[in-house]
């Protein structure tokens, strides 16, 4: 066990964990931020997607040593006070989620896409979003929500 400091949603947190600890479980169990989800632990489903210095990354395989000095953004950190992020607003307007479990990862991937490409084409949406699995099958709603958010 060793003390490590990480920066999440603009705030620094010091945690005392071993070498095997991953960002996902530090977020969930040490910082009690449960919005980031465990799906596979193998970076294959996208449920745990967070932003690492603005780029989508898989918290489930990210050791704390890999994020020293970097800014982590989670689903809890993208709204501006009570005002939800435009992507979240679009998600709600399109009634995108079913079970909702994959949606934190979907939303953060979409946020990163729109930061990079404010008006993505269908192909660009396919390219950016096709590493996030939704078993409920909400892809058409996710696509519509991304296009709607792009207009906000």
């Amino acid at each position, binding site marked *: 066990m060793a003390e490590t400091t990480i920066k999440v949603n603009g705030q620094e947190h010091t945690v005392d964990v071993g070498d095997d600890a991953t960002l996902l*479980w530090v977020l969930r169990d040490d910082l009690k931020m449960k919005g980031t*989800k465990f799906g596979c632990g193998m970076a294959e*489903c996208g449920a745990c997607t967070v932003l690492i210095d603005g780029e989508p990354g898989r918290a489930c395989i990210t050791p704390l040593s890999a994020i020293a000095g970097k800014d982590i953004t989670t689903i809890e950190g993208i709204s501006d006070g009570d005002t939800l992020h435009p992507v979240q607003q679009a998600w709600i307007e399109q009634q995108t989620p079913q079970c*909702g479990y994959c949606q934190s990862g979907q939303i953060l991937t979409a946020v990163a896409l729109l930061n990079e490409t404010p008006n993505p084409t269908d192909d660009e949406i396919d390219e950016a979003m096709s590493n996030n699995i939704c*078993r409920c099958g909400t892809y058409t709603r996710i696509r519509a929500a991304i296009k709607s958010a792009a207009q906000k």
Partner: protein
Amino acid sequence: MIDQITASSMSRRRLLKAAGAGAGLVVVFGVPVQARQATPEATPDIGVVNARGINYNGSIVAPPFSSEADAFIKINEDGTVTLATGKIEFGQGIRTGFMQLIAEELDVDFDQVEVSMAQTDVAAPEMGSFGSMSTRVSGPVFQKAAATMRAWLLELAAEALGDDVADLTVASGIVTGPSGTKTYAELAGGQQSMREISEDATPKNPSTYTIIGKSIPRVDMTAKSTGQQVYGIDIEVEGMVYGKVVRPPSLDATLDDVDFTEALAMPGIVGSIRDGNFAAIAGERKDQVEAAIKAVKASWTESGSAITSENIYDRIKETADAGKPLDQEDTAGDPDTVLAGIESAATYTYRVPFLSHSPIEPKSAVADVREDGVDIWVSTQDAFSSRAMVAKLLGRDENEVIVHGQHPGGAFGSKIVPQAELEAAMISQELGRPVKLIWDRIEEFQFGQFRPAMQVEITAGLDEEGAIAGWKYDAYAAAYYPEGSKVPTGSASDWSANIHEIYPDVAESKTILYQGVSPLPPYFWRVNGATTNTFARESTLDILAEQAGVDPVSFRDAMLANAPRLAATMHAAVDASGWKPGVGSTGEGYGIALGSDAGSFIAQVARVQVDPDSGELKILSVDAAIDPGLALNPEAITHQIEGAIVQSLSAAIREEITFENGKLTNGTFSQYAPIVMRDAPAISVTVLSDPSLPMGGVGEPGVAPVLGAVANAIYDAVGARVFQAPFTAERILEALGNA
């Protein structure tokens, strides 16, 4: 009809406690017994758990369905309404739907209704959430209970105001009469009264509905877009540790020996348990138990199953006699004799593989086993089966066990079967402290359940008028036989097998379903057999339509003279799709398939593009129409159908569990490769509503037709008939070679 029910005094005490200490009015009611009987197969079997390594002997019977009046609706003293139900929300929209039903009947604002779900110390032992039954089976009972409550409130208001009930009106929970007004809060305040559901209570006339039938946004959209929705995997309790099970190398392996010495010396590890085939460790942190489980030395004897995903179809047929033909056997006329006299009659054979449910939230649970009681927190579709099995496993009375059912992060049938909570309970009992257990993805694939592989053989031929002269349907399904049992655990392989369920007029037909021995435990995967059977049936109908020289829609029309709702549904989908089959040369094609499930009628048109050189298949669009009778919330129904289509497309073009030696060979997301954004087509859904009809189910009907519609569209595009799912490029090329 709901039987008039007498609440026992014990139920009353329990109820008044469950309904809360606060004042209010309570209407109690039973959940109809036939609701459970409608799906006897839904009862999880402990045999399934046996195969997973829990050392537990003996059979278990799920609790008989409640015939006691112990479900309730309550008007709280602040005028809000509480409905307690054993059902659970997991994205299908039933919380919103129940709120609409109750608000409508009680004339309160939609957001004044709260729904308590799947808490076994609060709700009646209601059937779980599966089979598209929540709204259509429980909904009408809730409406009647709410109508009872409304009549009671009017009685009280009439008394308080000195007016006649006939002169009262209600809006937003305020009763108005000639002499003044009374709010529900005023009427319920200071009361602690209970009444039973009245058979005389009359729910509203559907023509007066103002909330039912409206597309009210589902109430959990904000929580699910902000990371605030709580799932079973998010639960923590004071003092808990993480458990981790020592898994066998293959299914049905037996544990010879286990040595925890090294693991127990590792950081954070607090204990271990060995009980027969079940072995597990526990530790302070998740990463610690994951590191330590690798240090556990276990030796197993494997069963050495020779069955593989390649030979499973032959194996099912060979072993079908080990069981009995499913009692689903339907015969009309003498199709054997008729078909023997038809030269063009032929047999068409279809195959579908095992599928994994693979919800993104894996199985997980928190168990706290104490002397004074047991608490379980788990994402479950069936909290009361979970309670029954935990109680049985621990040798406790069911009333000592409270299951706090949590919102599952995807389920699709897999979270009907109690597993993680049994394992967590075993460890918690051993250690005397709360234990949280989360399956990893490999466990979720390997040790869960599977949609059964099936082979369907249809023998059919046309008469001189080009109509179906005879139809023989033999289905062979993988089934799981618990040790020593001659009766397979149910897997609903027979759903939609009987052509008469869809096309009532086929005069000469015979349907038999055989169940063969499976190395993998089959279980409900959405509509299960209905997907397979609809694929086989609808493909064969297109083959016969071509033989008859008519287009697929006209051929079906001729079979639907006595199924006008399905015919109308078909035409709605056809119209929405721009139906233009026979383009052929462009590699684009249209295909149609129909279904009927859960009291709803469904039709889908798929438009696909096939590259004849590579066999590559692209799904361009799916246009669906559904007639659910009364459409409670059209937008929510649309969403359900969209999701069902996407998941079933994944089964159509991608998903196939492969295995050998009792081990999956593609048990990860990257290997199993469910469809993702780039595979998802444009989808349109037309919802036909008739408020005068009962509500049909809407969760599952969208699943069944997809494979048939896509297979028929592939044929229309390139003239190649695919008989085996998934429709990979390799199989399409093979079919092109045979074309």
